[in-house]
C-alpha cells in the first residue's frame, strides 16, 4: 500500500543521489537533472477523480490512477526515466512547485495568471471541453436555476482552486467556504453546512453518481476558457519545451481522451 511505498522511498532516494553524483558535471537545468538522475518526481493531490485518485486495492505506485497519472507515466516513458508519484494536499502542491521543492505537478491544475507568475506552465493537455459548475442537493434543483439564484449563498470550493477564483468573481455577495479537498466540501454540502460546491463538471458528476441525494445544478460558470496544464518550477524552459512536445504528441493521438474515459469508468467502480 501507500505506507510501504513511503517507507521504501528514502532508500531509493539515496541510491539515486549516489548514482547521480558519480555521473558527469552538475546538470545545467532541471531537464538535464531529471535525465541524469533517471527519475522524475510528480506531485498531485490524489483525491480528484477522474484526474487522479487512489485505488486502494493496489499498492505502491500502482495505486495512483486517473488520466493525469497516465499522462505522467507517458511523459516519464518518453523521457526514458523512472516515475515517482508523490501525493500531497492541494496547497502543498501549489507551493511545492512555486518554491521549487518538487520537479513537476500534474494535478488537474487550471491555468491562471497568478499561477503563470509563480511557476512555468505548459500548454493545455486537456482536450475535453471542461466546464465548471455546482454540486447541490437534489431537492434544491428548483431553487438554483440560474447563477443569480446563487448570489449570497454559502458556496464551498477547494482552497486555491480555479473554482475559488470563479466563485469569487462571478457570484455576488458570496459566502465562500474553502476546503482542503473537494471530498470534504461535498461532505459539508451533504450535512447542510453549505448550499453548493463549486467543482469542475466532470469531477462533480462522479460525486453525483455516487450519492443519490446530490445533483449537478443547471447553471455553469461563464467564460471558463479553461486550460489544464502541467506545472514546473519557474524558469525551467528546457523542461517545459520537452513537456509541450510530449503534450502535442498526446493530443495528436487523442490519448488523453481515452485515458479520461477509462479513468471515469474505474473511478465509478472503485467501491464495488
Amino acid at each position, binding site marked *: 500500500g501507500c505506507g510501504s511505498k513511503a517507507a521504501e522511498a528514502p532508500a531509493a532516494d539515496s541510491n539515486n543521489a549516489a548514482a547521480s553524483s558519480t555521473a558527469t558535471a552538475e546538470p545545467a537545468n532541471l531537464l538535464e537533472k531529471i535525465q541524469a538522475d533517471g527519475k522524475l518526481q510528480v506531485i498531485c493531490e490524489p483525491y480528484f477523480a477522474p484526474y487522479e485518485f487512489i485505488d486502494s486495492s493496489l499498492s505502491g505506485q500502482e495505486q495512483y490512477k486517473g488520466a493525469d497519472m497516465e499522462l505522467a507515466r507517458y511523459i516519464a516513458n518518453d523521457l526514458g526515466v523512472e516515475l515517482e508519484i508523490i501525493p500531497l494536499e492541494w*496547497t502543498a502542491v*501549489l*507551493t511545492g512547485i*512555486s*518554491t521549487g521543492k518538487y520537479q513537476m505537478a500534474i494535478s488537474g491544475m487550471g491555468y491562471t495568471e*497568478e*499561477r503563470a*507568475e*509563480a*511557476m512555468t506552465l505548459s500548454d493545455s493537455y486537456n482536450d475535453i471541453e471542461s466546464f465548471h459548475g455546482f454540486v447541490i442537493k437534489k431537492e434544491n434543483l428548483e431553487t438554483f436555476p440560474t447563477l443569480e439564484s446563487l448570489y449570497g449563498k454559502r458556496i464551498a470550493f477547494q*482552497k*486555491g482552486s480555479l473554482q475559488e477564483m470563479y466563485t469569487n468573481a462571478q457570484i455576488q455577495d458570496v459566502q465562500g*467556504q*474553502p*476546503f*482542503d479537498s473537494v471530498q*470534504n466540501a461535498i*461532505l*459539508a454540502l451533504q*450535512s*447542510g*453546512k453549505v448550499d453548493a460546491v463549486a467543482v469542475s463538471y466532470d469531477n462533480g458528476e462522479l460525486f453525483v453518481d455516487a450519492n443519490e441525494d446530490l445533483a449537478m445544478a443547471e447553471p455553469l460558470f461563464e467564460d471558463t476558457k479553461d486550460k489544464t496544464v502541467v506545472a514546473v518550477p519557474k524558469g525551467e524552459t528546457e523542461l517545459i519545451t520537452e513537456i509541450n512536445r510530449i503534450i502535442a504528441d498526446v493530443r495528436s493521438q487523442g490519448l488523453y481522451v481515452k485515458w479520461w474515459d477509462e479513468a471515469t469508468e474505474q473511478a465509478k467502480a472503485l467501491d464495488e
Partner: protein
Amino acid sequence: MIANIVRIWGKYWMIFLEGLWNTFWIALVAIAVGTIFGTLIALVRMSKRKGISSIAAIYIEIIRGTPMLLQFYLFWLGLPYLFPTISNLACALVALCVNSSAYVAETIRAGIQAVDPGQREAALSLGLTESNIMKKVILPQAVKNILPALGNEFVVMIKETALASVFFVGELMTAFKTVQSNTFLALEPLIIVGLIYLFITLTLSNIMKVFERRMKAND
C-alpha cells in the same frame, strides 16, 4: 528571504493579526468551557459510585486516547446530524471544548488529590459535611495546584487550534494557508506565523510564571 518576510508582513499583516486574534479567542473559549465541564467531569470521576465514575473515566480515556485531528473530523461530520445549520467554526469550537474538558478534568482531579489528605481528615474530624469539606477546605487549596496547570492547558489549546485550519476557521494556520496560496511562497509566511505563535505562548507562560511566583510567595 528576510526581504520577502518583510514584504509579506507589510502586505498581509492584517490577515496574520486576524489569525492571531481568532487563535486567541478560540483557545480562550475552549479553555473556559473546558474548565466548566472539566470540573463537573472531575467531580463525577471522583464520585464514590463506581457506575457513574467509570462513565466519566471512559469519556476521559476516549478523548485522551485519540488524536485531536480525528476529533475535529468527528465533530465536523457528526454534529450536523444534530444541528443541520452548524458552521465549521462552531464544530471546531465544540471539538476543542470537548477535548479540553477531558484534559482539564484530569488536571482538576490531580489538583484535588494533591491536597494533603490530612486536610480532609481534619475537616472530617470537625464534623464538616462532605460538600462543605470540598467547598471550604479542599477546592480553595486545590486551586493553587490547578491554576498553573490550566495556564498550561491554555497554551496547549492555542497550539491545537492550528489543526482547525483543516476547516479554515480563520486562525493563524489558516492565515498561513491563505497567504501561501496568494503569494505562492511557503517558508516566509510560515516563519511569520511561527514567530506569532512563539510570541503568544511565551507571553502566556511568562505571565503564568509571575503568577505562580506570587502564589508561592503567599505560602
